[in-house]
């Protein structure tokens, strides 16, 4: 259940940023989620919804884009996306293979795909503050 603590961190940041900018409500939260960050998005979404109740972000839409896992091969220098193992379609994710697709070496380093980044939020501002935020 580490989605709960991740959701807490996301909500904390979103509320803080919204308050700093004088927003009256948060309408949307956009995330980038690395494919090998072990985050179940349904759970994360549920926790965020619970944690934002009665806050500025109550009812905010959550949208996210997935960041593919990329690796650098320390043997042959390959840099690019990982391969995936084909699994039963009912699986929640495609299992990444971290060996180099070019030379099969396991000596690779993950370059991207571990993120849980709050990219931006869509916020609403009271009309009288419009000028401040234009």
């Amino acid at each position, binding site marked *: 259940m580490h989605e709960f603590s*991740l959701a807490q961190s996301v909500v904390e940041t979103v509320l803080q940023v*919204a308050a700093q900018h004088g927003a009256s409500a948060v309408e949307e939260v956009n995330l980038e989620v690395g494919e090998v960050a072990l985050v179940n998005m349904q759970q994360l979404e549920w926790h965020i919804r619970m944690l934002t109740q009665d806050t500025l972000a109550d009812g905010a839409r959550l949208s996210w884009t997935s960041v593919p896992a990329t690796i650098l091969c320390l043997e042959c220098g390959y840099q690019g996306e990982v391969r995936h193992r084909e699994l039963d379609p009912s699986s929640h994710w495609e299992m990444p293979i*971290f060996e180099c697709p070019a030379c099969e070496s396991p000596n690779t380093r993950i370059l991207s795909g571990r993120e849980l980044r709050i990219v931006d939020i869509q916020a609403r*501002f009271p009309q009288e503050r419009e000028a401040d935020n234009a």
Partner: protein
Amino acid sequence: MHDVSKIYVGHDVIEANRALGNQNRAWLEQRGVRAINVMGAIGSGKTSLIELAIEMLKAEVGMAVMAGDVIAEFDSERFRRHGVRVVPLNTGKECHLDAHLVQHGLQELDLDGVELLFVENVGNLICPSDFYLGEHLRVIVVSVTEGDDIVAKHPVIFKDADVAIVNKVDLAELVSADPDKMVRDALAGVPRAFKTSVRTGEGIQEWIQLVRETARQAPGPEQRQ
């Protein structure tokens, strides 16, 4: 009428934890301490392996333990019997340690005379993976009783580790598990993997040597990204 606009945030939650982990690492290094994050499945033998290392090395290496668990008192008591300083890290509902919790633990822990800190993570092969704590060595322990496909099922946590240990190999036949397959699967992700049995002593020298080497490791930034 309301004005709606986009606010750029650009805050990565995983990265924020990593930054705290780096602070922990710097704190430890200023005090001449190296840390081993011992991760692994529930009941894989993490506590027993740490106890054994403490018992075999306590004459030559100053050690302390941070015992992370949903209720940390059980393991803490086991470690205290070996005469080392222990900080229990109760995670309650949480399934992993994060750098923030470890930071609090470090503030409570007297590191005077300590050269090596064991951080025993919560038994879990998924959640701890995303959370760097500031350790110098990340060890992942699994045992044959979890089934010999346990490694293949959890590629991410093995990719994140430095060393994998396949424990309880004395029981392999009883549970029809192939420990060599587990080692092979682990080597797809980690640079080093070996088999151990706390009962028969198989592989224990390699474990002890690894702990000893880590205690003597030169300071510096984390190598693994």
